[in-house]
């Protein structure tokens, strides 16, 4: 109960911080809109000259696909990993460890508060798309979409926590984070829909990044329900949490608290 109370108190502080840095937030939104614009222009041009009649996407669906994918991707920022990296580098971790509150709870509050506005944007977007009859998703499809989204957020939160904790060993993880972010984007279908890949890469759909981004987007867009997907993602969450516990235990053994 105390943890929940702490969580809410921390979320309120984070929201106040967000209010103070409005420009940064709007800059991040604009930073997401621009690639969608580029991709949309590219696909509109490409599909105009397409020589394959059986191509799965139409100009409308592929633009919608990228809008949904980028809206979901807003949740999966790597800012938290940079924040953990800074805590370790500057020695701020010391003060967090002394607090009567779990470090994971503190970071979860940070993660959730950062994602409150993207969450509102995604909900608004889903309502607009549904009302304008661009897609006709069933209630089950929406429920599967939401369950994948929540599990995906959980997976991503623990995943970026692990990446941030690697600072204990590597000192500077910036390059590694950008590299992993790019690879994760490819695996998640954020660059190209995974259905466009050759048949022999079909198994890629079961990777956790795809289950968090590509599969929910496909579910919302086409109404195709893959009932095994939420279970597979839940399994990935257990695996990543076990990995986090091992990493945390080892990181605390190696942490030297020399920052500050």
């Amino acid at each position: 109960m105390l943890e929940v109370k702490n969580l809410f108190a921390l979320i309120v502080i984070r929201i106040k911080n967000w209010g103070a840095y409005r420009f940064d937030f709007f800059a991040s939104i604009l930073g997401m809109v621009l690639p969608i614009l580029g991709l949309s222009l590219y696909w509109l041009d490409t599909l105009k000259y397409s020589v394959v009649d059986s191509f799965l996407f139409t100009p409308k669906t592929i633009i919608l696909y990228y809008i949904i994918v980028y809206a979901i991707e807003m949740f999966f920022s790597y800012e938290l990993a940079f924040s953990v990296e800074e805590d370790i580098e500057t020695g701020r971790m010391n003060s967090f460890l002394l607090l009567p509150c779990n470090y994971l709870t503190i970071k979860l509050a940070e993660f959730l508060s950062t994602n409150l506005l993207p969450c509102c944007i995604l909900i608004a977007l889903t309502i607009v798309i549904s009302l304008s009859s661009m897609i006709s998703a069933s209630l089950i499809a929406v429920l599967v979409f939401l369950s994948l989204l929540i599990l995906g957020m959980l997976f991503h939160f623990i995943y970026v926590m692990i990446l941030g904790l690697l600072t204990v060993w590597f000192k500077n993880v910036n390059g590694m984070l950008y590299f992993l972010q790019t690879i994760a984007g490819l695996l998640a279908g954020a660059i190209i829909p995974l259905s466009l890949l050759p048949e022999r890469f079909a198994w890629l759909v079961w990777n956790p990044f795809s289950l968090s981004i590509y599969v929910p987007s496909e579910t919302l867009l086409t109404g195709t329900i893959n009932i095994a997907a939420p279970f597979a993602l839940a399994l990935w969450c257990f695996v990543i949490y076990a990995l986090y516990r091992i990493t945390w235990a080892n990181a605390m053994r190696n942490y030297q608290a020399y920052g500050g």
Partner: protein
Amino acid sequence: MSLKLFTSLIRASLIRSMRYRFDFIMSLLEGLSILLINLTFFYTSAAIVSSDRQIELYLLAPVFQIFTGLFYGLFIDNITGLKYYINRGDLDWMLLKPVNSQFYISLRFINFGHIVSGLLAIPLIIVITSTYGIQVQLIDWCVACVYIAIAVLDGYAVLTTTTSIAIALTSSGNVSGIVLPLLSVGKYPRRIFKGLLSSIVVIALPCLVLCDFAKDAIMGSWRITEILMHIALMFVQIWIASTAFRASCYKYKSSGS
């Protein structure tokens, strides 16, 4: 003087790269992952277009990679750090140095991982041109290099101008989150910009179409008037960037701890 300073900065960056080898390797991998993603994207999407369009998409990915490698390698760790210099008060001593402040801030750190990842795309261009039987003359290579150099300097001008304006107006300066995704639009063929948008991009953001011009040059299609026009536009953009930088420095109030 500037050349001597630049040489010293390169030497310092090299020493840093050797000291932090893991970071160097990760920057290299990050650069290569961008190439991998662009290649996957273009090879996958090229499957649905005619063969003549396929070749230009295949060539565009490595050309854009050279631009990205050089741009990120030279500027990404510098201008984007301006907001931190202001927050921490580091800008005070930088402005006091007896060198051109913009030059010093723009080229202080050089990321060799990105530069190497960019240069690694050159063999790929050679493989693609030889596979598809494209005869590339020496002059075509030179023109392509000129276009890429203009693109890098244009990208720098856009980043510096927007960062300076953001610092002057919002005290934030965190515009790299906008400019970098914007520059990534340069990986697409320029024909995606149509009508008025095409004219606006060529004049205001030429770096978005210059990789496509460089790709055309490799394929033997270029005009001297276009090169001269882009060089002229580049000088205008650099002048604007320099003016914006000076203006933001005038507005700067030392407040760091």
